[in-house]
Each structure stands twice: as structure tokens, then as C-alpha cells.
């Protein structure tokens, strides 16, 4: 099943169509959850065009998550009308959402939604949103987040954003898009490569590595203003930025003292401190969500493996602890938002695949059957892992649920997409 959310919205409201529609990420579901919750999203009543655009985005969001099966509601449903529970039960729906859109006094729209439990015939919530026409998709994502959280118990991520790099001939663009691939905007365009984007914890900034100075330099880029500053430009290479959970510091890899080693700098680029020492390569640092550890890739044991050190550095005196042991190539550690599992890339028989380790039991599961997986990135609710891979010689993004069941493919026509990073929850 293919979703082109933008096409739906464009059909409804012409002003929503960006000029660069062709360059947009399209999301394709390639695998769904085993027990999908049957839910009916009725057509909202009131302002017809707005209502249609809202409900189609809400439906697309819920279906794309792989956790829901959409059931035809049969008839439009206002937020203050009683759902036809018996009919909905016969249609197999466990939950139903209805809504109404009216024009508010200031010309904006007021959208009211009610979600109900069908078997219990009880309301689950009744949120209202005041929004302009340009905030239509954002409002629909909020509604989908509300429904998702009420029905699954965990936060929805439809309102979040993703960053990724698109490579076309002689051109690299650092793009920001909604989690469904729509509304893509270029934060930076360059003739030289851009890699390793990392979101600040508040979602306002991106740290990344740009080669525009003919060598890797770490920048911090404020998305709202478009302003950026150099966070690390020492002699040699500067790379692999990772934010501390409080957003004040960056772990970076510098080569100013020899080979690639781990340092911490303040986000404004001041105050550089070395935090680990090895004779070989240390790279790809990542803080654990509780701020206690820094996970990283090192070849100190002879092959690249994942290790962790106390974030307080050598002062703790405990040194590095090895985390991965199976195989001869385990790289790119990424902690789940709850800190309980570790996604990484593992080489198995010449194939580079996304793996997930339960940190308590050390049980590891390979989540993909592809061969060139890179750069995993957790959704902020931990449910999906976004990563880069290659299909037909072209770079695409893919996402897989942490149980390996739900699978999506995100691609841009005629371009290479790589280096995805899923942004934090929007509150």
C-alpha cells in the first residue's frame, strides 16, 4: 500500500503543495504488525474541504504506523453526535473517532474531535484545536498523536520531524521533513558532502559534519533562524557529533592529537576535553538517555566493536567496558529512548544489517534482511527505528519496528537519501 499524503492534501487544498513535490520522500508500508487494532476514522463534519484533508492525513498516519487497521465508519460523524455503536461493532471497529470543523471568529478553523471505545460505548477523549489553513497537516498529526496515545498507551510520533541528506549530482542537501515525509525543507545545500546530522534534545538545532572546507568540520545549525556556528574545527578531522541529554555539550571525534579520539566540547564550540584514550580508532559516541554513559565504536580490541565509558570520563577510573562480542564488525551504537536496548549495525557474512540488543539480557536480534544498512535512529517513542539502506543501487531510508514486524520504505525519486535522524517529541 502506498501513501502519498501530499497528493491527498494537494487535491483538497492547492496552497499546501510545495513547489518541490517531486523531491519529497514517499512512504511505503512493506510489513505490518500482527495484531492491528481495528479503528474507524469517520469523515468529520462541517467545513468539507478542511475536514476531508484532516481525516485523510489522520488515516494515513495511523495506517502507516502498522499498529492499526482502518475500518470504514459508514457515515460522517460529528464530535458531539453519538456514534452508531452497534453498526460500528458489526463493522469490527474497536474504536471510532469523529469530529467537526467550524470557522472561528478570527477566520481560523476550530476542529473538535471525539474518540470513543466501541465495545464499552464510552468516550476516550474530546480534544479541540484552533488552527489556520496552513496548519492543517500539523493539526491532523496532532489528532493522530492523540488517538495513537489513547489507544496504545505510548506517545505518538506523527508530529515529529526527521532530518536526512539527499545527494543528487554534485549537490548535497540537508533536509528536514515531517515524519510522514511531507513539508520537506532544505536547511543546507552544499557541493561538498554533509554527514552525521544529530538533533538537539529540544528539537531546535542540528549538529552535523560538513566537508565544505575540504575537510570534516562540525557545525551547530539553528533551524528557526538558519544561523549556524562552527562547533569543532581543529587541525585534522572533526566529526560524529552527539548531544548530551541536557543539550549543553557535544561529544565529538577529533584527530588533533593523532588518530580519531573522543572529546567533549560545549555546544558553542568552547572548552574541549578529551574523555577517552586508545591507540586506535574511537568514534561514533552516543550518550545514554540518563546521561551516565557514552557508547562508542572502537577498534581497540582488534576489530570494530561497541564499548561504553562513564560520561564523567577517565575520572571515574573504571575504563571502557565492551558491549558487543559476536562477529567482527559491530558499529554505530544508538540507545533506545528508554535506555534499555541498543540498535547498531552488524556485519554478517559480508552483509551490514541493523541489529537490536536487549542491554539487560544481551540478547541480539537482526531486524532486517538487507545488506547495506547504516545510521539507525530511534523514533522518540522507541517503537520504530529509521535507518539508511540501499535498494537497486540507490540510497533509501527504511524503518522497522523494534519487534521487526512493521516495515516501511522512504524514498526520493531519482536521488540518494542517507543519514537519517529522527527528531525529538514535540510538546
Amino acid at each position, binding site marked *: 500500500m502506498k501513501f502519498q499524503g501530499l497528493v491527498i492534501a494537494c487535491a483538497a487544498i492547492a496552497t499546501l503543495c510545495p513547489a518541490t513535490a517531486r523531491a519529497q520522500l514517499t512512504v511505503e508500508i512493506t510489513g505490518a504488525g500482527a495484531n492491528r487494532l481495528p479503528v474507524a476514522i469517520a469523515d468529520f463534519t462541517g467545513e468539507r474541504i478542511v475536514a476531508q484533508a484532516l481525516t485523510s492525513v489522520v488515516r494515513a498516519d495511523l495506517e502507516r504506523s502498522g499498529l492499526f487497521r482502518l475500518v470504514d465508519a459508514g457515515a460522517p460523524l460529528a464530535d458531539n453526535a453519538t456514534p452508531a455503536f452497534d453498526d460500528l461493532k458489526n463493522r469490527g471497529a474497536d474504536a471510532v473517532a469523529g469530529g467537526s470543523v467550524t470557522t472561528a471568529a478570527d477566520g481560523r478553523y476550530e476542529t473538535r474531535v471525539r474518540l470513543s471505545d466501541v465495545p464499552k460505548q464510552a468516550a476516550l477523549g474530546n480534544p479541540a484545536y484552533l488552527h489556520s489553513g496552513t496548519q492543517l497537516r500539523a493539526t491532523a498529526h496532532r489528532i493522530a498523536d492523540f488517538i495513537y496515545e489513547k489507544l496504545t498507551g505510548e506517545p505518538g510520533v506523527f508530529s515529529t520531524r526527521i532530518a536526512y541528506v539527499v545527494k543528487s549530482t554534485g549537490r548535497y542537501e540537508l533536509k528536514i521533513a515531517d515524519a510522514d515525509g511531507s513539508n520537506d525543507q532544505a536547511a543546507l545545500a552544499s557541493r561538498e*558532502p554533509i*554527514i*552525521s546530522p544529530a538533533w538537539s534534545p529540544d528539537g531546535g538545532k542540528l549538529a552535523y559534519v560538513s*566537508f*565544505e*572546507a*575540504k*575537510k*570534516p*568540520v562540525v557545525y551547530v545549525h539553528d533551524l528557526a533562524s538558519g544561523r549556524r556556528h*562552527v562547533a*569543532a*574545527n*581543529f*587541525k*585534522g*578531522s572533526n*566529526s*560524529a557529533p552527539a548531544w548530551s541529554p541536557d543539550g549543553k555539550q557535544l561529544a565529538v*571525534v577529533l*584527530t588533533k592529537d*593523532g*588518530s*580519531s579520539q573522543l572529546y567533549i566540547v560545549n555546544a558553542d*564550540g568552547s572548552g*574541549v576535553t578529551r574523555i577517552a584514550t586508545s591507540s586506535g*580508532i574511537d*568514534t*561514533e559516541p552516543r550518550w545514554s538517555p540518563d546521561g551516565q554513559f557514552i557508547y562508542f*565504536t572502537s577498534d581497540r580490541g582488534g576489530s*570494530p566493536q561497541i564499548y561504553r565509558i562513564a560520561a564523567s570520563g577517565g575520572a571515574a577510573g573504571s575504563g571502557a567496558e565492551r558491549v558487543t562480542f559476536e562477529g567482527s*564488525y559491530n*558499529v*554505530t551504537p544508538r540507545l533506545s529512548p528508554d535506555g534499555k536496548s541498543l540498535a547498531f*549495525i552488524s*556485519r554478517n557474512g559480508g552483509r*551490514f544489517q541493523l541489529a537490536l540488543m536487549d542491554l539487560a539480557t544481551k540478547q541480539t536480534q537482526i531486524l532486517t534482511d538487507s545488506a547495506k544498512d*547504516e*545510521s539507525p535512529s530511534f523514533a522518540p517513542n522507541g517503537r520504530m527505528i529509521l535507518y539508511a539502506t540501499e535498494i537497486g*543501487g540507490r540510497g533509501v531510508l527504511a524503518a522497522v519496528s523494534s519487534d521487526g514486524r512493521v516495515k516501511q520504505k522512504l524514498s526520493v525519486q531519482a536521488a540518494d537519501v542517507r*543519514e537519517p535522524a529522527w527528531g525529538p517529541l514535540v510538546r
Partner: protein
Amino acid sequence: MRARLISLPALSVLTLLLAACGSQPPAPEQGAAGVESRTPSAVKVDTSPVTTVQPDRFDPNSIAALKDPRSPLSKRSVYFDYDSYVVKDEFQALLTAHGKFLAANPKMKMLIQGNADERGSREYNLALGQKRAEAVKKTLVLLGAREDQLEAVSLGEEKPVCTESGEDCWAKNRRGDMLYAGEF
């Protein structure tokens, strides 16, 4: 004019030297702040046309030799084996020529860009490219270059010269490139 105080042969030598230096923009700053400036700093001189007869002589340590196909200095790439940072014997002669050149021209600066093939993590490949650049740098220092003339950086897998998948192509991408100031 002050130049009148200098004898004419001395002046022509001086002008030649300045012209030689002026043709090469200075090495980039390597401090912690800012993107490097590529603007050549102005050299304040009074110039007058000087005609010279170019000798048909080959000076292995002249700046002209950098672009002379007869000189080993015109070759700039060192290739590495898979998962290796060891400079192979076949590149010793090339690195000896560059090491001697850098020793003879202490104002010349060089950027060494290490590269890796496409397999595996981009950031880990960046670190592998760095190891190759460092290996070239260490060899050049052993052969007479000074540490402060050299900067070793990595482009990782980001700038492949060959983009097909396969060992022939990958071998061309496991590479260290030597660029003199003004060439990057």
C-alpha cells in the same frame, strides 16, 4: 623607490621568488575557530617587468616540479590494501620525493586527505581514512617534512573516485591524496 638600492640581479631574483610565492595561496589557518580563509594575503611590492630566459633544466625541488609530469612530485596518490594503513614499498620513492621537497621548501604546506571504500559505517570509514592520512604524514615527517607543514584529514567514503561496487573500484578509493596549498 627602495628597490633602486638593490642591484639589478638581486632584484630579479627577489621578484622571481616573490612571484613563485605569490602563485601559491598561503596555507589555511588551522585554529579552532571559523572556516578556513582561502583569500591570499596581499604582499606589498613594487613590480616591474623582468624578462628571463627559462633554463631547460630540471630542479627536483622547484615549485614548478609539482606540476611537471617528468617529476615524481606530480604524482599525489598513495593506495592502501583492504583494512590496512601500511604505506606499501612501491610508494616509498614517491613519498621520499615529497618529503625532500617539503624539507627544501619549508614554507610549503600540504593537506593529506585520506579516503576509504564504501563498505560499512560512514563515521568509522572517516576514521579509517584518517589513519591512512596519518600514515602518509608520518612517512613524510620521517623523510624530512616538518610536522607543522602537514595536516592529515579524512574524507572517509564521501569522495570516491570510482563509484561502482567491486574490489577494482574499492581499491582506487582506499587512498591518501597529497594536496599542496592552493590546490584544495
